[in-house]
């Protein structure tokens, strides 16, 4: 990095390459058939050097941050560029190469300008179904990868511009939604075509040598920005661990441990000490684990950092084989992104908190809290399936409360409106709101968890819940208290029955299922919180008068206006501090 790139060409080409990735993404979303891609945007598109180094990507979910840099390089090892030619496209979904899970199918195309390979373009999209033991290919009880669907090693789906229809036929024959499969594969090919066209335009406009030079420069640029940010981290070694509350088969706790070592302008992450891989499908492939690492680092350094190979170069990661964070073949992996990814991220933030406490958040709701109700709609006789992931509290930060009722970290999908749920499924939503007092107390309060109460209106509905933080609270930081745990229960008339965090069961008609998601942890001692700010929370009903006194030591006058009794508050806070100092 001794050369000085032209800052204007750098900015213009960096933006141009980013917009190549974005236009590929727009093309993919526009042309795909399945809602996963076109509505939920569970897909990513990217531009690479011919060596498989990621130059620009348009990712719609953070999980792909770790997948995209790895997949092309891994494929090139199996399928070198020397065996490719113009008009080729490689297809792959094997998690033990791609780093993802089976529903994520990746298509990679080389781009040739005047017979010379200049770049690779690729995209990854979550297909509706890739076969396996359950519709959607996301079984919660698979014990090996073969139960999760069809595995595709890197093979040419297109050669010299001609599609391999025979192979596509085999693949489509093995998935439940063959029509969508074809549609989405065509969309993925079209996206790469868009990318190819734009890269050729750039090569024509700027010349091949300048383009190739700036593919490198764009990566060096990100690396410089990343390194200059990492250089500001205090050198040291920081460890943290946390647990997953079961693998879907047993409720045994699974440990995730990370040690983060900072120094100079690099960072080193070691997952040694993490549990052995699980029997159930919660194992995080290397790609998922790396996604969590890059996510956490991007968030604590600069959220606007362009995602490419450059930000990865100063990051060294050790993921011991055969563990929860890098399972050995043929362990099942489909569900890592629901809960495991969230816990890995918590652990990384817990470790980074020791180095840069002002840049992290306390633990958040810690799960994508997957909630499914399915059955036969007697009105239409058709199978219905309501699937949604619920957010909760965001962990508090130094200087800022956590957000209430929001998706945190590795996911960001939107909720389904109550009115849409009720018009689409035989369900009645009784309640959807924030859970007062669920945010971890602190100088800065953790975000509140949410509650949704759904009544099943027809017989024979199957309810399936997968959430975490059922027993282990989201932790606070710097003296902040923990967020409230998640909870799930059934209501039949006046009876209630508590359910475990991961459960599947059939419920009778007019029975209600209540899911409360966890709140976020607090930051800083709650006795440090401005009484006036506590009062605001009391006025909004986010913190009760009782908890204001109990946790924050703030005494609210019994008047309607929630005035703070400052004299009583001072006294109470002093007592609280003394009590805290007294050894137990």
């Amino acid at each position, binding site marked *: 990095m001794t050369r*000085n790139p032209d*800052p*204007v060409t*750098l*900015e*213009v080409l960096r*933006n141009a390459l980013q*917009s190549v990735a*974005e*236009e590929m993404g727009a093309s993919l979303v*526009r*042309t795909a*058939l399945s*809602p996963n891609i*076109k*509505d939920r945007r569970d897909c990513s598109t990217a531009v690479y050097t011919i060596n498989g180094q990621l130059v620009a990507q348009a990712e719609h979910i953070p999980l792909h941050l770790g997948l995209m840099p790895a997949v092309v390089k891994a494929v090139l090892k199996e399928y070198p560029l020397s065996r490719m030619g113009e008009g080729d496209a490689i297809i792959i979904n094997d998690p033990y190469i791609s780093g993802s899970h089976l529903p994520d199918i990746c298509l990679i195309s080389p781009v040739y300008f005047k017979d010379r390979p200049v770049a690779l373009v690729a995209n990854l999209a979550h297909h509706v179904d890739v076969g396996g033991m359950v519709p959607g290919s996301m079984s919660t009880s698979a014990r090996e990868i073969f139960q999760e669907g069809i595995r595709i090693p890197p093979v040419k789906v297109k050669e010299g511009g001609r599609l391999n229809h025979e192979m596509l036929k085999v693949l489509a024959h093995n998935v439940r939604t063959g029509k969508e499969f074809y*549609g989405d594969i065509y*969309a993925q090919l*079209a996206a790469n075509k868009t990318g190819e066209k734009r890269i050729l335009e750039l090569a024509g406009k700027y010349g091949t040598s300048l383009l190739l030079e700036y593919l490198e420069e764009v990566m060096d*640029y*990100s690396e*410089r*920005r990343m390194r*200059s*940010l990492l250089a500001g981290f205090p050198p040291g070694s920081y460890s943290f661990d946390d647990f997953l509350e079961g693998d879907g088969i047993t409720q045994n706790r699974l440990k995730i441990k990370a040690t983060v070592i900072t120094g100079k302008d690099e960072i080193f992450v070691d997952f040694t000490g993490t549990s052995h891989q699980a029997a159930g499908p919660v194992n995080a492939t290397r790609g998922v684990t790396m996604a969590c690492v890059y996510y956490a680092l*991007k*968030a604590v350094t600069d*959220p*606007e950092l362009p995602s490419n190979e450059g930000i990865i170069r100063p990051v060294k990661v050790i993921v011991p084989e055969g563990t929860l964070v890098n399972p050995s073949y043929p362990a099942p992996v489909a569900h890592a992104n629901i809960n495991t990814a969230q816990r890995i991220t918590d652990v990384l933030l817990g470790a980074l908190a020791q180095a840069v406490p002002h*840049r*992290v*958040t306390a633990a958040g709701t810690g799960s994508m809290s997957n909630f499914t109700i399915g059955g036969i709609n007697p009105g239409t006789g058709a199978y219905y399936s309501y699937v949604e992931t*619920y*957010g909760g509290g*965001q962990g508090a930060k130094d200087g*800022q409360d956590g*957000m*209430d*009722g*929001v*998706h*945190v970290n590795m996911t*960001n999908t*939107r*909720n389904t*409106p*109550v*009115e*849409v749920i*009720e*018009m689409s499924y035989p369900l009645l*939503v009784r*309640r*959807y*709101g*924030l859970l007062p007092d669920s945010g971890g107390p602190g100088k800065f309060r953790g975000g509140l968890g*949410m509650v949704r109460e759904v009544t099943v209106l027809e017989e024979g509905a199957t309810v399936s819940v997968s959430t975490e933080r059922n027993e282990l609270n989201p932790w606070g930081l710097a003296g902040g208290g923990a967020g409230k745990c998640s909870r799930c229960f059934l209501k039949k008339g006046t009876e209630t029955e508590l359910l475990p965090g991961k459960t599947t069961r059939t419920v009778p008609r007019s029975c209600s299922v209540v899911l409360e998601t966890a709140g976020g942890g607090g930051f800083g001692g709650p006795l440090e919180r401005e009484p006036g700010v506590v009062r605001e929370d009391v*006025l*909004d*009903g986010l913190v009760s008068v009782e908890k204001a006194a109990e946790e924050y030591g703030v005494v609210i006058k019994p008047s309607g206006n929630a005035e703070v009794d400052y004299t009583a508050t001072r006294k109470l806070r002093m007592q609280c501090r003394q009590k805290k100092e007294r050894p137990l």
Partner: protein
Amino acid sequence: MAKVSSTPNNPAFAVLNGIKKVIRDCGVEPGMINLVLHGTTVATNALLEQRAAITALLTTEGFRDILSIGRQNRPHLYDFRALKPPPLIPRRHTYEVKERMLYNGEIMTPLDETQVAETAALLRRKGIFSVAVSLLHAYKNPRHEVRIKEIFKIKHPGALVTLSSEIMPEFREYERTCTTAINALVRPKIDFYLESLETGLKESGINGNLLVMHSGGGVLTAARARTESARTVFSGPAGGVLAGAGISREAASGNVITLDMGGTSTDICLIRKGAPGYTSEGEIGGYPLRLPMIDIHTIGAGGGSIAWLDSGGALRVGPSSAGASPGPACYGLGGTEPTVTDANLLLGRINRFTPLGDKKNLDLELAGSAIAEKIAKPLGIEPGAAAKGILTVVNANMARAVRVASIQRGHDLREYTLMAFGGAGPLHGAALARELGMPQVIIPRFPGVTSALGMLQADVRLDFSRTYIDCLEDVTPAILERYYGVMEREGKENLLHDGFNDSQIILNRSADLRYAGQSCEITLPVPGGTLARPDLDRVRASFHLVHKQQYGWGREDSKIELVNLRLAAVGKLTKTFNPPVHEGSVMPEPSCFRKVYFSQYVNTPVYRREDLAPGFALRGPAVVEQEDATVLIFGGMSVECDREGNLIIKTEVR
């Protein structure tokens, strides 16, 4: 044309002062004015600056947190500190009402009227006069909402009550509640403002109708704007788009992309076959505002955008802006950051002898030193090269935004003309069009006031909508006609009441449609009059077609779902605007020559816009200056003045 200072305490005074000044300058009797068209940002500002009135929200029991949760997503994937905007109406002012409507309009729990009466009395005691009511499934059955309004009329008669079923009777509770809340929040301000304006006009002897611009690109009566105030929220840039649509029909075969580049931001809108795109998915400050509005794409790039070097060594421009104060360094008002305007000045593209306030000229030295200190020296390059870099980057940013609004939606830019206006648009239009491969640029006669002139082309437009969800294949034409009929009667009655006659009224039906299973809709026109099955078949065919054009695929075998029915009731206004008389010449002498940087410095002829008459034509490089803008024409391009006084630049001349 007149410019007056603003009067922050009551913005109506400034408007009245301006009107009086224009009348005086033109020697017109106040009594002769029969129409006052007004565009206002009072509602927008009230909302963005959080100066709106204290407002209460009434919701269904169990759903107090609709506004707090929103769609549960966070605004930025990686930024922990990028917060969801706070609930528009705080939780403490949100009251749950015991009632429940089902999705099919059946009442599950009747309204607890006693509780509503108590809440009304409580709000009255607390002095809260603005109330939003948004109950679940009220779009399907508004009975409970209507009853609440009646109860408030008795128990809290001073309150301004906005019902979700009136302002936006469509499904999706968060978006509907937000839209209702926005209306309730800005209503007191607009109400007071328009009342003072109406009074002031009367006192000045002007008895003409006061019509207010709305975000749908039409105008409404002041009376209606005072109850449906949220409709004025995005009215600002709509005028410019209307001007673009007007010009597109005359001079550009209907296909235009408008580029309204001002000091801090640029508004981009695609106009196809003379009609701008509409959306009902607008947002303001992160809050959804689901009222029909012209689909305008805004980016943070303008003359005041600040250039800076980031930690990776790239030259960036914007999105932060020096605004009007302190403004670009060359304004001499204390700004030290280099801006796009400073770069244009340094390269000779703007006339340094442009008066600004009480200053006689722009300060070239300040512009030069800002660019030198902040950009050129750290990079070890000449200030001129740095200035050129700043312009390259800002043009690339705008080009990217234009691509998003066009190519990414399946439009071919070679079929479009770029219409560049606003203070900075004419300077950048030609470069941008060349970058994007667009053949032609139009610079309207008065680029600085194009938005205001565009308003003169507006008609009264009232928008209505109803949610009606069913498969297009299953719906009977009679049912649709009934729904449209209700809206048409309402629209027509309103327009007749506003003084229009039958021959001036146009009723345009449309519908939001999607493939069954999708969650985003496309709005398409629906034939008027008596509907029959073939009409619906045509709607179906055009849906497949438009879907394919916009998204690249269509599925003839898939079911299509109707989601919302819409009606625009248009009252045609007589257009009386006469284009200005041209007194210039076809072959004027340049007013001067100036060294202007293109790929090198070129001694370039500078013309005054008022010297150019229709028929004027020449080849670049050239500069055309006028009071409110500077037009830049590159070498290899040609420019001509058309009959209307627009400048037409052809970007590729052979």
